[in-house]
């Protein structure tokens, strides 16, 4: 079985096959393993399945590395260790409280500076919300082939579908400021359930996103502003929805767009 076409040789072991796949096989053994695989198509197929499996592993879990890091896992660690963070519930509230101070993003060069624009009451959406909105923006705006799931050419279908999944009437706000036009949208999931993502693009191909998820808290909030490098986001809560507009654009244009969205959803 383990004798190759070119005569007797050191038998190829299962360990050799895996080491070959993982690039850990010594150079001098490579030829005999490859000969063995050529002579044993069944085994070659099995090893190729392992290769595909390894690729799927990275493909499936790889994106987790871009998840925004919750506040409790950002420095300074010692200070946080003294907080009463015994249970998941307490940790959640500690995190929500900290959300009003700072959100730290994985992979980003800096932190997010959050501050009130106006003195409206109501708890802002949490750190996790804005971090998810920004992560979705980062992931999908760079997509060439599949930036959206359903295009604006099927707007009625898009609105009906997202409304059904979100459980609320989801109008599809038009944005005209800055020359942006609706491309379409997609359904996403975050820790709290379904999320709607709309994407807009201008003539130069710059994209902004509108990230919307249902919020159990119906009290409205002021716009809040977050920034990381050139990427800016405005987020707020209104009528049982938490919303975030994110884009690589100046604050004045972003504010104009956010107000336009706000107006369109309240008209």
């Amino acid at each position, binding site marked *: 079985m383990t004798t190759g076409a070119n005569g007797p040789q050191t038998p190829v072991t299962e360990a050799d096959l895996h080491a070959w796949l993982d690039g850990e096989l010594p150079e001098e053994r490579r030829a005999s393993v490859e000969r063995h695989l050529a002579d044993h198509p069944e085994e070659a197929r099995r090893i190729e399945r*392992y290769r595909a499996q390894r690729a799927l592993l990275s493909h499936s*879990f790889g994106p987790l*590395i871009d998840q925004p*890091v919750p506040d409790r896992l950002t420095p300074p660690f010692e200070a946080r260790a003294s907080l009463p963070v015994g249970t998941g519930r307490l940790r959640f509230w500690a995190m929500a409280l900290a959300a009003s101070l700072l959100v730290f993003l994985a992979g980003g060069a800096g932190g997010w500076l959050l501050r009130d624009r106006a003195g409206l009451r109501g708890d802002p959406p949490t750190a996790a919300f804005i971090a998810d909105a920004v992560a979705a923006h980062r992931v999908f705006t760079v997509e060439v082939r*599949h930036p959206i799931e359903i295009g604006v050419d099927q707007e009625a279908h898009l609105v009906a579908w997202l409304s059904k999944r979100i459980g609320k009437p989801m109008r599809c706000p038009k944005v005209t400021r800055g020359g942006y036009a609706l491309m379409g949208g997609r359904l996403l999931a975050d820790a709290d359930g379904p999320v709607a993502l709309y994407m807009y693009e201008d003539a130069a191909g710059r994209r902004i996103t509108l990230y919307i998820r249902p919020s159990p808290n119906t009290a409205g909030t002021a716009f809040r502003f977050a920034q990381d490098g050139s990427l800016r986001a405005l987020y707020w809560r209104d009528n049982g929805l938490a919303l975030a507009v994110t884009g690589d654009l100046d604050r004045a244009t972003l504010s104009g767009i956010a107000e336009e969205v706000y107006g369109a959803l309240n008209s």
Partner: protein
Amino acid sequence: MTGEDAPDGPDMTGPSPDDHRIGHQIDDRAIAAHVPRLRRYATALVGNRPDADDLVQDCVEKALANRHALRDPSRLGGWLMSILHNLHISGLRGRRRRGAEIPVEELADDLALSAPPADRGAVRDFVRAFGQLTDEHRTVLLLTGMEGLSYRETAEVLELPIGTVMSRLARARERLRVLLDGGAEQAVRRIK
């Protein structure tokens, strides 16, 4: 406490390579640089984010408490991985987890939705199948396949002989293949 009267937040500058220089004590930022990787590993290992974050937080706290034990800061990544692994194992022993399989439905749906539409089914099936493996198998597949550790590095993290790592990897791959493709499991005989 509100945002207005809050003290300054934590230092917002990202970790810099200088933090890893030998002779410098590892600090928060050096550890923070590894947190995204630790979270990815822990999430894939335990199958949900809240438990993964608990595990990573415990890992960070333990690392800081024992920071003097790390002689060579360039080995910080592997050292953190070892701590996380040991915490996970002792947690499994302590809790005697609910059955062998881990509940991954939410994670599977979430990761599937983040994948391009054409890949969604494959990602969902993969995450579900992966959740049916034993902890030992998930661990060795993740360290070699996703974290890109060599057999030797994996053996160091797991504190096992290399031969054990290799036979475990072979069995894990075959088990996963059968879960994904169906068919009979090929008995992985003595590996050497």
